[in-house]
């Protein structure tokens, strides 16, 4: 993938920097909440790229680190509210994995706030839009994530 240009750096030259945020959303609650934000026309910043996963419990530390390595400026993981998990308890495992990962990320120099975790149910379209706004603003304030990205362009 060495010949590919990074869209983030491309926009750098023409427009103000805009972060790109990967959102891992569970199919049953948060993805449905994101759809509801759409049918209700709640507007939010266009910085997130949603990746549908069956359950927040499917999201591994590996996936988050790998997304940061690929160039994500921020990550949002969102699942069902505690107790509402379609897969009984997947979101609770996700919740336990998260603080452990946060400690590791902080240790390797990733600012707290780049990786967020939330609960959004299928009926919370408005909350979803609000969370995306908050996360986008937070990541914008932190600036581009550079810590885990190999700077191919500069090396070349």
């Amino acid at each position: 993938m060495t010949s590919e240009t990074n869209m983030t750096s491309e926009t750098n030259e023409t427009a103000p920097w805009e972060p790109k945020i990967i959102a891992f959303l569970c199919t049953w609650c948060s993805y449905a909440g994101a759809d509801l934000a759409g049918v209700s026309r709640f507007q939010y910043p266009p910085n997130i790229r949603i990746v549908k996963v069956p359950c927040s419990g499917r999201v591994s530390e590996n996936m988050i680190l790998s997304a940061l390595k690929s160039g994500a400026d921020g990550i949002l993981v969102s699942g069902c509210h505690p107790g509402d998990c379609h897969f009984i308890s997947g979101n609770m495992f996700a919740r336990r994995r998260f603080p452990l990962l946060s400690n590791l990320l902080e240790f390797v120099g990733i600012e707290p706030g780049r990786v967020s975790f939330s609960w959004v149910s299928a009926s919370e379209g408005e909350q979803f839009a609000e969370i995306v706004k908050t996360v986008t603003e937070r990541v914008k304030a932190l600036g581009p994530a550079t810590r885990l990205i190999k700077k191919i362009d500069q090396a070349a």
Partner: protein
Amino acid sequence: MPKGSVLVVGGGIAGVQAALDLANSGFLVHLVERTAAIGGKMSQLDKTFPTNDCSACILSPKLVECGRHMNINLLSLSDLVSLDGEPGNFRAVIRQRPRYVDPNKCIACGLCAEKCPKKVANDYNMGIGKRKAAYLSYPQAVPLKYAIDPAHCIWIKKPGRCGMCAKICPAGAISFDDQEKDHVLEVGSVVLAPGFSRFNPSSLDFTGYGRLPNVVTSMEFERLLSPSGPCMGHLERPSDGKEPQRIAWLQCVGSRDIHRAGNPYCSSVCCMFALKQAVISMEHAHGEFEPSIFYMDMRTHGKGFENYYNRAKEQGVRFHRARVHSIIPADDQGNLKVRYVDQQGKVNFEEFDMVVLSTGLQPYRHMIELAAMLKLELDADNFIKTDSFNPVASSRPGVYVCGAASEPKDIPQSVMEASAAAAEAGRILAPVRWSETSKKQYPMEMDIHAQPPRIGVFVCHCGINISSVVDVAAVSAYAGNLPDVVFSQTNLFTCSQDTINQMINIIKAEKLNRVVVASCSPRTHEPLFQETLRDAGLNQFLFEMANIRDQDSWVHQHEPAKATAKAIDLVRMAVARVRGEGALPYNTVPVTKSALVIGGGVSGMTAALTFADQGYPVTLIEQSDMLGGNGRKVFRNWKGDAILPYVTDLSAKVTSHPQINVKFNCEIKDVAGSVGKFSTTFSDGQSFEHGVAVMAVGGEPYKPEGKWQFLHGSNANVHTLLELDKRFIDQDASLKKIKQAVFIHCVGSRIPERPYCSRVCCTHAVDSAIKLKELNPDMDIFMLYRDIRTYGQRERLYQEARGKGIIFINYDLDRMPQVEEENGQLIVKAHDPIIDAHVTIHPDMLVLATAIQPRQQSGKNLAKFFKCAIDAQGFLLEAHMKLRPVDFATEGVFLAGLCHYPKSIEESIAQAKAAAARASIILAHDVVPAESITAEVNRAKCTGCGLCVEVCAYNAVSLDENGLSVVNTSMCKGCGNCVAGCRSDAVTLKNVGNEQIMAAVDAAFCDE
């Protein structure tokens, strides 16, 4: 033996739903549609309330399913002309008018319409604009076949004169000799869904309709808004094409009007219809926009409606509680002046660019003729009369009715009734299920093993839902240049039948082995496209969707460039994801043919009987020691029939039914399994295996407190409606002695803590007041209300109450009624806005119309057992508010009654039957599809740590005799928790592995 087929008359949403439910539960369906295409009124709508869903988008998959269904025989341009026989064995004659186009030859190329010289008013667009005499009703029409309109065709009127279409048709499909045909069908039951017509306001001179071009009906306005309408979704007013900035909506045109229109009933849907149009118009408008609604009472009594109303107010929709006197031209530019009288009697004028008349619903003339031919009783308003406690049964046994033909109603209610009618129609035919049906055969699936990816991308305009924001042509062009993408195109509606058929051909012709559709949400449309892949001989799991509508164009409406860039990213991500996907097996689970019903109220009992009468064993659990629930506490329904005898009779039927096991004082302790095979353990330690479950856990009355207490509980003369009902049921003679009574409406409803309307209390209160008047005609009765919501034919009660001298005084939250007592005497103080004065009443009795709320305990806890969603108020949340009103997103679990939303007893009965009908589709099959996306272990990497076993909530993973992890595929639900938990990367989820997900994530950043 009865016949295993059913006749459904009417191809609107109600008829389509009934046909699908029946065909999917083992009956051959003959669907008879009067016009050239199914879809009905819903196909003409732009958006639907309260979700603002695109109407065509949510309807289209159902129409396509109907059109392609093996067991639905679609007869368009047809009418039922006679029906003989009896339930189980009817003989129906269907007269099919000539289409003059051979549907087997027509390829829907449209050349006939293009060349046809005869222009006629476009009836699909409510007469706005023109179509040709050779026509297709609308772009997503099912069947997608042209027709020739004999009333206008030049050749048919004068043979030899034109014939352009026949000359140009490349398929030779035009056949001017086409003749009327009679089909004789033998069917077991009949479902009528003939729909409704709209009131024609030409007779109301004060509206100027017909004279003033910028006065339009709500249905005409809907077409003006629609992307498939005459202005392609760019709102333009008829006189000069200018974009209107000030629009007025006039409510109750042809409804609630006994003087001029002669329609005493409320049409139920127009308030929400107008609110929706006002909100959607604001979205369409490019500059300043001022919507105003002139109304008598805002009737937002359905689920999610009150919130919609509140949001419309916040968004700037203006509301005038006023009847409009006249609409006159304001100038010679086409602007209009509305003259109206406000609440204080002051005459006002206001200018608008356009006026929309919210015209009422009324029976079709041909429906009345049909009813006469079938010897069905009609009610006073000429709707088909139904049974008080069986809302889908007509007066003729074996003939059922659903939708707005029996009373004006909205789409979810019509859909519920359609499923309920399917339940009734199928009830006596249960023994002959599958006797006349045929089984769908899919083509052999292409073996894609070792083939390089050949990906096809279909980018949807979704009318203008996507293309008004996202540059879909650019997205498609971009996608076409991605590696492995060999085909890319845009479609107006990707889910329409022509596109679906085209997609099948493209997959075959281009030898595609993976498909991406960039359109709406996979939650609603993935099944349709996956089925299309199967029809094309491709494994259905070689498919991904890019959600560029719900999660892009709709949420970035003001940032088209960024939305387009995002759509490009999303498509690239979907292509990257699908590239690594493989064919998966179609797993199945055997169905345990029994049902669990939770809740022994009217809904629960009705559902249980519907299952049991079809021969399925049922366990009904009730938390108390008695069946009947709230039904035992209500005196009579709005039609005046006593409820208690009905409930007593129903309880007796349930307890004596050999197939029903009732468990009292019973609660659920645990639920395991999923659709087809649940295992539920009860509080008594026993357990029950069942294939489906119906939640009918009911609701409870709000107990007045705080500022809504009004001395309830401390003064013996303050009652709730149910407490008054108890006195009616007990025939309390002291009620006659009451001289003055006051009712306060909306106690605990429509307030920030409970921002919904409890739907039934207005009718209940007004009927109770009438009952008091019956007991003592001299009683003075005052109703303190916010909006009177006696929707549908309940409006008659409101008229009757006013006729009896009951006084209605409006209040709002800023001027709440005050209730005090002096030596036990109640004093009610209120402000009367009409005389603009304070009034003080000294009633002997105060009645509070209290809210209905979900059960605090059982609802929430039970929902968790079955993994069902609940809404912000605690009511159970259905899979889709419009078209799946009794299903949960969780398969195999259904809902009915007050746990869904406040509703009347006949609505609960209809919903319970609908829930049982939907559940019976599963029970009618021997197997149901099971999860195909399951975990698998790479044993070379597995270290046998057992973490996957620990995190699996379904006990699907275990360690084998070698200490290595194995997955029991039949128990795996595909959550992927074990994958994320595995520390040696030995477990993966088929098609949702790290490989596919990380490919999608990488693609978000790499412009390939």
